[in-house]
């Protein structure tokens, strides 16, 4: 996989985790327990940060 494709993949992954995180937090805010009863939001938070970090480091290079 070339660097450009990897950069795009991690960009998409970052956007995906970030948007999902916003949606899940919104659902949890509206219906307490709706998300955190089944999903660990910490994982989504760290996944968003890591994918964002990888994307930025790839872009920098």
């Amino acid at each position, binding site marked *: 996989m070339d660097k450009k494709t990897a950069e795009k993949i991690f960009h998409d992954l970052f956007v995906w985790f970030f*948007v999902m995180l916003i949606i899940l937090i919104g659902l949890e805010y509206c219906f307490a327990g709706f998300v955190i009863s089944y999903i660990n939001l910490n994982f989504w938070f760290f996944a968003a940060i890591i994918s964002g970090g990888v994307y930025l480091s790839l872009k920098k290079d």
Partner: protein
Amino acid sequence: MSRLVLFRSFLIFAAVLILASLFYLNLVPAGRYFVSSDFKAANPAVSVLYPESRVNPAADGITVKEEPVYFDVRLPRKFDAARVKIYFDDLKTDVLELGIEGTPGAKNFTFAPLKNKFLDTLDWPRLSDGALVLYQRDNLYGRLDDFFRHLPPPNQIAAYRAPFSYNYKIPGYAAGKWPREIQTDFLGSFKFYTYLKDEPLDFKFTFKSPEAWPAISVRVFSGDKLAVSRDYVDIPAGAELAHERTFYLYQKNLPEGVYRVAIAAPPEIIVSKIITPARYLSFIGPLRFSPDSGPKNILTSARRLYAKNWDELSAMLVADGKGHRLKIPEQRYDIEMATMAYVLKPLWFDHGIELDGDGLFAFDWLSFFDPVIQNFNPAVAQAGTVNYLLTGYQGTSRTDGSEVGAAVFDLTNVSPSANRKIRFVLSLPGFQSAENGVKIKKAEIEFTGDRVGWGWIKNKFSEIFKRFL
């Protein structure tokens, strides 16, 4: 299709799948939701046992060293019933009970027994239909149906955490025709039972107030259901304050049965008299008689009486039927009645005291009736007055070296908190010190409710439309 497009499609598909499965999990379409916990760490559905100062973690469970302890369960949606299994060991008290809170923060717990050592060793013959157990001193009834078809008098029945309401009927009852006057001289709130059949609920209460007329409310219950509700708030202030006021409580077309009337008034209000044609009036303790009331004769079915004086004047009470006068102090004074039998005993006192006891009170022999089923305790069984014991307690079983107590709760009247949690309490009646505790190993809870089908969806939509239209 490029690899990137494929990857983006996968992300969209995954997002839809995750959100759809979240909705599915929260909807619980099958109507069954199961959670469990060993209380060692909180999980998203079940909390740990708290307050944490009352528990000690042990290798094979959590030791409860002070009671009560609570735990919360988060519900994805509303359910109708909860079947709870508690795995425990080393129970040092005689009783272990589990309660569920009706309203968040209100501590209005409904309790169910998990273990009762006294009932485990009670050698009375036992009948069970799976939900209700009947113990009978003499083996008179062969089936539970027979018992409910030919109920014995209520004073022979005791109930312990039993889903049972006694449909009390007085055979050959004829409605009272002529109103009579009872000089009550009660201070503040009081409660009584009355019986109605083909007659209206008809009471006139005469209230006296030394200073102001605050709100007075009257609630009439048939079993646990509110039948009549009145609030007397439109009382004019000013010149009329010193006068007596009469309030009417009148309601036609009530079905035959026992009614519990509860009058809530501040303690400065005196209820000087009651005028009613009702034949039966049995008062529920505590009764507070005004210090200004003169000597009074009343009757009680209590076997243990509690009396308290109101003011510096010493009050005298004759409660033993032999004319011996007891001086009642200001603190609570416990009196064991001369006869432990469940019969009416006369009481006389010279001026206002507070009376309470394990029975009812009446102002004359003819108006007394007792529709109350006693709460069970070991003394009730040993005293010999109770011949039947109804309970929801089914006994325990043993699994994997633990004792397992089960309880079923009706959730239709349980409101979850804003974050959709319901609260359970583990109680150890008779607990005295940390050596009396219990080791809790595990809880398994199965919630059941409506299945989600087209009917359920239609109902939800019609509810939403009704709310907006």
